[in-house]
């Protein structure tokens, strides 16, 4: 019997194809970041189909296997959908990347052709086994953005588990993983832009938690991410002192910070100032959710705001926050 890995890599209805010029560029960009093409990924995964060869205990193996099976099922569910906007695209997958934390880049809707494309970058504690949940999330984001878009406009949302996310709060204070992932993220964005061609389509990065730091570092270095909008949810810092360093119009940098999000306490230390404070610039989003994990609660206004931005619409904003005494920039 085939392993789930084999089933998944053998099933590739749309992902990693290189027939269309756009996908060539994107596949090349993904390849260059370390994600293997389907034919290349077959070999290692075929050989790594047991807990022993993967170096996993049975419980971890079972969870990994279940995640792969769920991803495969979700891809299959949309394989025969005539409307390309509702198809899933597997852009890159490597469950063994980052010392087994895994790498997966999956899109709902064709990012080559969409009027509006969003890249969702998760943060701490998001590993391969969480990819099915990420897929559910990007589909809901896509649905919300589609409802806010203009007639005939299409939306694609990508789940980008393409850097080594921290596994713990302790690790989340270390800037190294964000820095390590910046080149890959920029190459990925370059690939998206090449695939889009002219006229430029609308590109939004939506990042959560440590993902906002990873996006901040990638956006502020090199040629940046070429993003039209950047949304930072529950940010512990974006690696810059001001929004204008992100190489995106600061009027299109959006920060959502719940009143009781504990990341409020870490701004100014190792990852940069909290972007919700007044000196950072950008816009604070009206946020009606609580805690660090509530930004995409099913029917929250916070979530609706994200959909509006992805669709190029004006979200609801709140004033920037004044912190008495500002912050001490010891993170430099």
């Amino acid at each position, binding site marked *: 019997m085939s392993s789930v890995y084999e089933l998944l890599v053998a099933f590739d209805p749309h992902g990693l194809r290189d027939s269309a010029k756009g996908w060539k560029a994107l596949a090349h960009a993904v390849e260059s970041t370390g994600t293997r093409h389907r034919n290349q990924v077959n070999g290692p995964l075929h050989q790594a189909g047991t807990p022993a060869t993967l170096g996993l205990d049975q419980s971890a193996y079972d969870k990994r296997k279940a995640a792969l099976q769920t991803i495969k099922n979700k891809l299959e569910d949309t394989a025969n959908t005539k409307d390309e906007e509702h198809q899933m695209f597997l852009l890159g997958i490597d469950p063994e990347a980052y010392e087994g934390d895994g790498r997966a880049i999956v899109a709902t809707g064709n990012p080559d052709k969409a009027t509006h494309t969003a890249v969702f970058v998760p943060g701490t504690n998001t590993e391969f086994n*969480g990819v099915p949940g990420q897929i559910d999330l990007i589909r*809901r984001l896509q649905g*919300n953005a*589609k*409802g806010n878009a203009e007639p005939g406009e299409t939306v694609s949302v990508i789940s980008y588990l393409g850097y080594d996310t921290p596994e713990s709060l302790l690790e989340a204070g270390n800037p190294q993983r964000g820095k390590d992932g910046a080149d890959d993220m920029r190459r990925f964005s370059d690939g998206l832009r090449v695939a889009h061609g002219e006229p430029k389509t609308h590109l939004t990065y939506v990042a959560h938690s440590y993902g906002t730091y990873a996006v901040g570092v990638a956006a502020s270095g090199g040629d940046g991410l070429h993003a039209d909008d950047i949304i930072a949810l529950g940010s512990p810092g974006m690696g810059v002192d001001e929004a204008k360093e992100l190489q995106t119009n600061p009027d299109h940098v959006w920060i959502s910070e719940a009143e009781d999000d504990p990341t409020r306490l870490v701004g100014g230390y190792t990852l940069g100032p909290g972007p919700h404070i007044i000196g950072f610039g950008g816009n604070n989003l009206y946020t009606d959710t609580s*805690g660090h994990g509530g930004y995409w609660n099913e*029917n929250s206004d916070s979530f609706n705001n994200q959909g509006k931005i992805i669709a190029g619409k004006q979200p609801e904003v709140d004033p920037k926050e004044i912190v008495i005494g500002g912050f001490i920039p010891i993170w430099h």
Partner: protein
Amino acid sequence: MTRPSTRRSDTGTGTRLKRLLAVALMVATLGACMSNPGTGKYDPLPVKSQQETLDWARQLIAHLVQTVGIEINSEPEEAGFHPCIGRNGESAPDGRYTLLYFVHSDVPGARHNDVVRSARDLLTKEGLKVTVYREATDTKPSVALWTRHPESNYTVRVDSTSDKRMALSVTTPCLMPPSASPAPTQ
């Protein structure tokens, strides 16, 4: 952004009567759909089939557009059933879901303020709370009305998408399908 505003639009007797009837029908509809929602963290989820939920959302929007005097345009409705996602990205395998429902209406920009005022009046009478209310101005030409039912936790929103079009949407909290829930007809 104003949350909330206290402005009210003028209405004639006939219109008021129609609105009262519409509100009464909506109360009955919503009461049947979202009864006993529970307010505690560990309360059971409301049970409703996807088809029933979609029918309810369609009916709610139909009453809304009729009352405020606009029409749903010919664009396809966007009705998406999505798995509920936990705060750590987890989802349960029992079919629990939310509905994200959008329709659109072609409305000249000059009427957007009237529409959003009328919609606010209707929805607040129904018991929904306004979380965002914004009328169009010269500097910000789009309107926004976001409302939420305080107990059932569903939302109804009305937004300008351009100077000639509005989006009307309903989202639900997490709902549990009954066993062998029928598939929705779209």
